[in-house]
């Protein structure tokens, strides 16, 4: 479970960032949120910048993210959101590799997983977001059932820890979970 608190929230609520780290359980991990240290569509940062025509903001954004990722010991960006901006692109991935070397979740820029200049990436599946735990569990199982064995990566939004717990319980109680072969130990 990766909790995507944007690390620059520490400017407003540093004690909260410390609190969640002190209270974390072994299955809780922290990653950067959309799309690094701050909510932004990074695809809008490289030139040409469609509406503003400003110079590239990629370098200053990278330095901003480096500072906060280092401060909070984060090396994964949970999700780089493309939205209606140009898709992530190589320039944004190159920038992300400087502060998020252990991985990035991608939006439209990828339809699978792999490695970009040493940094692993994977498409973020949006199938279960904005639902109740029951609906999310059902959607997740349906989605997984439609796929060949693979790495999958899901994003949830505005779901509480208790709702996540319920989601995991429902999936683990399912027939699919109990009939599947667990192979991670073979790596």
């Amino acid at each position: 479970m990766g909790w995507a608190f944007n690390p620059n929230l520490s400017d407003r609520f540093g004690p909260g960032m410390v609190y969640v780290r002190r209270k974390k359980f072994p299955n809780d991990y922290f990653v950067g949120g959309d799309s690094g240290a701050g909510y932004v569509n990074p695809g809008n940062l490289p030139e040409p910048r469609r509406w503003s025509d400003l110079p590239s903001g990629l370098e200053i954004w990278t330095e901003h993210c480096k500072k906060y990722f280092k401060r909070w010991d984060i090396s994964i960006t949970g999700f780089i959101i493309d939205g209606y901006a140009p898709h992530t692109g190589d320039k944004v991935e190159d920038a992300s590799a400087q502060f998020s070397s252990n991985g990035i979740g991608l939006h439209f820029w990828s339809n699978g997983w792999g490695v970009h200049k040493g940094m692993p990436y994977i498409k973020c599946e949006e199938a279960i977001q904005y639902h109740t735990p029951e609906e999310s569990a059902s959607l997740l199982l349906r989605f997984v059932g439609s796929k060949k064995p693979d790495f999958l990566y899901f994003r949830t939004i505005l779901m509480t820890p208790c709702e996540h717990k319920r989601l995991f319980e429902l999936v683990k109680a399912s027939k699919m979970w109990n009939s599947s072969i667990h192979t991670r130990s073979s790596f």
Partner: protein
Amino acid sequence: MEFVDPYTLFLLIKKVSVTKAETADNQGKASLQDGRHRFSGLPPEEGK
């Protein structure tokens, strides 16, 4: 099926990707290229 934390997931992706690339090299095939799964990267209004 198994849930893993994000750091483990990305470590596994890296290991499998490297293994696949090495296998391709050993078989004399072209190495897997970064971005082989990608869409075009064009803005949405220009299609993908």
